[in-house]
């Protein structure tokens, strides 16, 4: 395969949501001594961009969107370690610590956000559901994350978003992190009221908000 064909195959693997194929193509590049960065930029990223277009036009639904995000993630997992340190950092949009707040076991929305964030170049530390405030903070401190993302489906657990912001302030580390909030009961007004840095009405909006927070778009 010439490079153009290879890049097209990579793009197609992401569009098709074919995780095995995407990872296989990524491994082939490394085996041939190819440039991982070129593969990412010319092969895989055009794929996830195309998926975004298909979603916006109403052709793709959540199962397709998630499968593509998974394929992207699989390819990145192969290629990222092969990048030179500086280039890996340049390519990463940053680390996001993500979870659903304590008392809340609902994590479908959060999982969508996690998948789309990693597909778009963020490194996601997914803490799962029913996560204590303390755990969000310790995970952020340990991983050197730039963003903390808080999901909540219930009005009662939504209050935990405010508590996390207060806790960050009381420890004097509020400025270290951008805090992104979301979930069914969360509104722009609530996000503003509690002083969050960003708010996503849905998973794609959350990705846009995260990009805006890191100054990448």
């Amino acid at each position, binding site marked *: 395969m010439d490079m153009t064909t290879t890049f097209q195959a990579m793009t197609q693997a992401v569009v098709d949501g074919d995780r095995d194929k995407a990872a296989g193509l990524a491994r082939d590049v490394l085996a041939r001594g190819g440039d991982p960065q070129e593969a990412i930029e010319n092969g895989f990223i055009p794929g996830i961009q195309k998926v975004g277009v298909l979603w916006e036009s109403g052709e793709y639904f959540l*199962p397709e969107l998630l499968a593509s995000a998974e394929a992207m993630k699989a390819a990145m997992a192969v290629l990222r370690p092969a990048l030179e340190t500086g280039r890996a950092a340049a390519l990463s949009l940053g680390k996001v610590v993500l979870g659903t707040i304590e008392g809340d076991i609902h994590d479908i929305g959060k999982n969508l956000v996690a998948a789309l964030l990693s597909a778009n170049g963020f490194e996601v530390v997914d803490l799962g559901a029913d996560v204590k405030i303390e755990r969000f903070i310790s995970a952020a401190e340990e991983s050197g994350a730039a963003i903390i993302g808080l999901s909540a489906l219930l*009005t009662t657990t939504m209050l935990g978003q405010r508590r996390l912001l207060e806790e960050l302030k009381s420890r004097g580390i509020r400025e270290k992190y951008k805090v992104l909030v979301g979930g069914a*009961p969360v509104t722009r007004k609530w996000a503003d009221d509690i002083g969050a840095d960003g708010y996503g009405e*849905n998973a794609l909006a959350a990705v846009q908000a995260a990009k805006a927070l890191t100054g990448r778009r």
Partner: protein
Amino acid sequence: MIPAIRPKVELLSPALIDQIVGEAYLILEREGVLFENAEARALFRAAGASVDEAAQRVRIGRRLVEESLLQTPASVVLYDRQGEKSFHVGGDDVHFDPGSAGTRIVDLRTNRERPPVTNDLVTQARLTDALPNFHFQSTSLVSSDVPPIIGDSYRVYIALLHSAKPIVTGTFRVEGFGPMRDMLAAVRGGEDELRRKPLAIFDACPSPPLKWSHLTSQSLIDSARAGIPSELISMGMTGASSPATIAGTLVQHVVENLAGLVLCQLAAPGAPVIFGGSPSSFDMRKGTTPMGAVETMMIDMAYAQIGKALHLPTHAYMALSDAKTADAQAGYESGIGAVLAALAGVNVVSGPGMLNYESAVSFEKLVIDDEICGMAYRLIDGIAGREIPLAEHLFRDFKPDTQFLTLPHTRKWYKLEHRLSTLPDRDTYDAWVAAGAKNIAGKASDRVREILDKTPVRSPEPALAEELRRIILDDARRNGVAALPV
């Protein structure tokens, strides 16, 4: 007289039921179900189930499930607060009650959602008490003006103070069970009396897929031991937290509910259990869980049919809508749901009054839904040959000017055959305009005010009210809550 047949709709063939239940047995035995609760696992272990402590996984053999099913009563009888009026929950009986645990309310004045306060819970209980087609009340709202820690017990307190109907409720915390049971027992004058005459159903939801949390397992154990019926609320979302196909989701539903049922029987053999649920179709665009989708209703009808095949009382969340106000979508989704639930013979149908994916209550919708439920009850009463001859005698000596309004036959039967509806618009056009040209929501809003103005509260005896107050104040104090709104 020729009696009516009970109109019924079934969606599953016997072969499909066998396949669904058969696969459920396989999963229970091979893959098992996760139980976070140590006491639950101990009960399973003592009964000979294979328990993996580290993974919190319990594998349940077919024999244990079948024995548990044999121990579970085929019906439950609930009694109102006075212990007089009884409600048989089983067979093809249908009882509508409002949906549960809303965290939002659609404000009557602004028509926008806001957090509910205690006064809204009082209104909800009073309306439910007055509206004739709700056989039970539900703790439909969670007060935002009391600390969440006592949110579960406080709503039962408000319910008992403002309505005499049996209650569908549930715990938010393990410690909530004690005060809730104590209040119910206080009404009956003791725990044995409560066991003999259940006043409430406790809902407990597994976490899909295939997990019972610490809290919900404890609710099953505690309720079983107190003789309080548990309603098992499995809630897969097709393609998100359960298989995408309806039949596939039904397999998971049966696994989760049967695992819960076995736990109830291990905690107290013969414990009353209701085979319920709140599954839903999953919107693959919005990532939401439409309760008004026809597929959601189909899943409900189908697991109810399976519950009946297992000789269990049944429950479903139907007659509710995802609309945000009491509009046409609210009407058609709730109306179709109520009628299908009734035709499926779901014993406890929770949902009226609810909007926005089971999260918000509208008082207007509650009033409209009461009318819908009345229609559904009438439908399943069917058509009887009231007397023989049916009509032949009315036509003897038939004349061109015969009219039926004045016949004794008409006066004898019209009220039994026909519901007299006053809420839907049945005016002539001119009369409708003259009366203010109101739509159904406007008329329902008037009805809400009329009920609140004119219907006296059915309060408990002062001594009982005082006892209930003592229990809730104790609970509040234990949890560091200094004052309560009511």
